[in-house]
């Protein structure tokens, strides 16, 4: 079954077509890659998917439901969560709190019940605490639970961002360059983790990446973007051999 369907998606800033006539279909449970040279519009696609920008043309369907032009909040509730190329953690909150924020909409007690500390509130907070700790354990961050997010080393910050995104129980997880700034050793670990996460949380993953080894290693299918346009699409190994793709990456 198709989880995500993007049809003729396009956006222009001023006169510039940043993304044009973009089509993509992802099936449930896939690990899908989105690649392309710098400035090809990959992050813009993510921004369109998560409601940061409104598309000028085209439609986006998640599980058959039209989410085009919806706000980020609604899109998150519909089941999409993401990480960012330039890490965006809540720096002055602890690691644990970061994940708890991700769990925001999973418990729904109101302001009044928090002020009066009603029994429902206590039970909900306990569940939040437990789930958050579980998530941290998955990413082996439990030792750092009470440290400030900004004090974590770079690699752990990336992990935390993924944990936080997963906390909101997405069906589709968007990872924007998860391996950026990591050494080969860390990247290898990351690959393992992405696979593990996909299984454990039963989540579909779409990721942007420059590290071809990673892409080749874990993505079943990929799409290549160039100058905002779709260049190639299909099974990873064969797409990477496509002369147009090689040309786009290496230049003329």
């Amino acid at each position: 079954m198709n989880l995500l369907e993007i049809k003729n998606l396009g956006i222009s800033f001023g006169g510039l077509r940043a993304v044009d006539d973009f089509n993509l279909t992802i099936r449930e449970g896939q690990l899908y890659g989105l690649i392309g040279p710098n400035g090809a519009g990959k992050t813009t696609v993510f921004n369109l998917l998560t409601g940061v920008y409104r598309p000028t043309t085209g439609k986006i369907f998640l599980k058959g439901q039209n989410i085009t032009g919806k706000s980020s909040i609604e899109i998150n509730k519909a089941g999409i969560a993401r990480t960012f190329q330039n890490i965006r953690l809540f720096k002055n909150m602890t690691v644990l709190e970061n994940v708890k924020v991700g769990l925001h909409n999973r418990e729904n007690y109101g302001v009044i019940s928090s002020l009066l500390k009603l029994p429902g509130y206590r039970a909900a907070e306990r569940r939040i605490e437990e789930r958050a700790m579980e998530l941290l354990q998955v990413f082996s961050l439990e030792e750092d639970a009470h440290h400030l997010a900004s004090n974590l080393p770079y690699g752990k910050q990336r992990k935390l961002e993924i944990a936080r995104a997963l906390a909101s129980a997405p069906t589709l997880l968007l990872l924007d360059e998860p391996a950026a700034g990591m050494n080969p050793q860390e990247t290898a670990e990351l690959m393992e983790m992405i696979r593990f996460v996909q299984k454990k949380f039963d989540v579909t993953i779409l990721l942007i990446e420059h590290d071809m080894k990673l892409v080749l290693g874990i993505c079943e299918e990929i799409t290549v973007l160039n100058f905002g346009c779709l260049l190639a699409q299909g099974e990873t190994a064969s797409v990477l051999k496509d002369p147009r793709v090689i040309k786009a990456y290496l230049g003329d």
Partner: protein
Amino acid sequence: MKNDIVKSEKKSNITGSSLLIRILVVVGIYALVSALMLTGNMSRSWESLSIRICFNVILALSLNLVVGFLGELSLGHAGFYAVGAYAGSMFAVYTDFPMFVRIIGAVLVGALSAGIAGFLISSSILKLKGDYLAIVTLAFGEIIRSFVKILPGTGGTAGLSGIPAFPSRYVGFTFAYAFVILTLIILKCFINSRHGRAVTAIRDNVISAEMLGININRYKVTVFVIASVLAGVAGVIFSFFKTMIEPNDFSYNLSIEILVMVVIGGMGNLTGSIIAAGVIVVVPELLRALEDYRMLMYAIVLIAVMLINESPKKAQFIERYSPKVLLKKLLRKGEKKSESA
């Protein structure tokens, strides 16, 4: 000001002993002040200061929710304070209920009116940020002060007098202190809930918060409403303390003074706000002996505190000599001794 966004690491699971300590501190302060008051051992200026400190603490705490936790610069807190003070004291002045009912009614009416004002203002300025939000809130405060002069029943520029006073200083202090504690409990509960985390998340990174499904606008309004309700309560206490209120009591200078309390106490630090509010109310009174040089000294102290707050040497100094660290060292020594013994 990274240092000032204080992290308490055990925020969510207050352990039994620290809760006990808090209760002891709260009760202890109250017991000490009441004992001094009731035995006539407290000087009169301190009796009145103790009430002034209370409503200033409520103001600082509530503004801290907006500035420190939500991260929006509001220069109009005096406006909500004014709405609460006027609405509450008009209720008390123009009704004939028994004293007790009038006081409680005034608090409810004041809080409700300020809350409505907070709701209206915050929901109309959601798009504004930073300095633009600052100037609009400042303008809002001045509008309130200005319109009070032409509204019926407010006493105009001359002010509203004849507001019932607290039966005694002790009653006044008890009343005000109770609301300080209530404010603290409300803020603590809010901040430690999922709503509080959402608000702090908005401060730290709006975009991330939005992507996690947090409704930014709803939380901005919620925070403003809570803060203005509390400011309104402070206004009612103020009007019972002063027994007359006039528009000039609520100028933008007051909003700035409250902001100074929040910043000096540390943004997002509730204990800091309490101490800073106390210090800012008390210091000018302590400096009375300096006569003409009083406000000059106040300005110098203010600048000095800001500079010290930001100085890297401060952090070093505190690391070495803070009472907690010293206590720990002492304990450790004690432990070692007992071990060796």
